[in-house]
């Protein structure tokens, strides 16, 4: 049994120090992914909190033969999507708005690369563009690019077909390249 599996088993049995250790072992990874997804500390901390609360509630459902990281990534993905949905709800009149219905695939309404390129550096432009990606593309890009996970690992973690992950990644990269070109054009015009 791995160290993580052992901790989960003990935590599920009521050992609070085991759960504490589990959190301490994985909080940096969870926070990093949450921050890359959310783009700010406030939301990243909320997401990370949600993740560990969900982990806590699901301790008895963890299969001992499964990879903890895969399990965690799936919980993180759901927490990211839930958090975005909740924040949309809090800032709008009600659930069920047209925007809410299209949330999963709609780009974020933040300034485009043209506006960002004027005052910001390229990395910031791209980071903003990542924040505008539809959620499926964003989570796949973050897992591949930032976390260095292979497509097959992402597919397993998210329960998706590898072909689907490949297309989500391609769509994300395509948009980022487009943003890069726009930013360069804009920067050139300003120079």
């Amino acid at each position: 049994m791995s160290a993580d599996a052992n901790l989960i088993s003990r935590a599920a049995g009521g050992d609070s120090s085991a759960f504490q250790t589990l959190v301490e072992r994985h909080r940096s990874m969870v926070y990093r992914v949450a921050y890359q997804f959310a783009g700010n500390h406030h939301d990243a901390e909320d997401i990370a909190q949600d993740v560990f609360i969900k982990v806590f509630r699901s301790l008895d459902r963890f299969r001992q033969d499964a990879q903890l990281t895969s399990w965690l990534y799936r919980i993180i993905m759901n927490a990211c999507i839930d958090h975005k949905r909740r924040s949309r709800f809090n800032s709008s009149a009600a659930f069920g708005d047209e925007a809410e219905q299209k949330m999963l695939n709609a780009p974020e309404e933040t300034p485009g690369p043209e506006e960002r390129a004027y005052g910001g550096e390229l990395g910031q432009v791209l980071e903003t563009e990542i924040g505008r990606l539809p959620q499926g593309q964003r989570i796949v890009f973050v897992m591949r690019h930032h976390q260095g996970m292979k497509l097959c690992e992402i597919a397993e973690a998210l329960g998706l077909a590898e072909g689907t992950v490949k297309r989500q990644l391609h769509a994300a990269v395509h948009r980022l390249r487009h943003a890069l070109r726009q930013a360069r054009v804009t920067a050139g015009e300003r120079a």
Partner: protein
Amino acid sequence: MTTCDRQTSGDLDLYFYDELVPSDRRAVEEHLHACSECRSALDELRVIREALASRPDVSAPASGDWSAFMMRLNASLGEQRTPTVTVVPMTTALRRPYVEYLAIAALLSLVTLSVTLALRKPQAPADAVPGVAPAVVQQVRTAPTKDVSAFRAMTEEHFERSKLVVLGLATKNAEELQSIDWTYERELATGLLNDTRLYRLAAEDRGLDKLAGVMRDLELVLLQTSMTDDKDPSSLQQIQRLIRRRDLIEKMDVVATTGL
């Protein structure tokens, strides 16, 4: 405008991320010698990687101190029934007995309200049937009484609609599936996905863990279906495996026959 097949197929991305088998990798390398468009695209990918690598790696709260994070987590977990982490903030510890009295008072109010509602003529659930998403949302999220019977009626209706989609996916022949079928299945799944997520959250809010678990499985199947397109013949088989692995149809049957 991209014109090269190596880019539209995604091969160039896979080459960049070192995801190609050696033979395909060699083929892309040979192609790069002859294709300036792909070389340019590859340069862009490198620029993106370098630009993002220059951004700070954030893996801890802004202060760099985890103690506030752990205290907040502990406070949240303190409300759960099973294990808690060891650090208990003083303010929470002092507040806890007071919170318990409030919880008992709230519970008594709920019981009183439920009895009152039960004695009245019940509201016909037709108004609450989730045919239109905003109505569902309002019903699910704004019901302050947490009336389980109304929630159950809405959930059963949602399961009935979802089960048709899941059964359709589970019984389709991947070899014979047409593009137009996929479009239809995807639209159905996308339409149900947000409602499923809402029901799952509502079930979690109400502590209906088993129902929330089934909703979570359903959500995963719908999410995968909504993100799939007709260019990948293995997609349906993947979804069908997921449905089988999660025993989704059986679980939905159990919920439908035994209630919540």
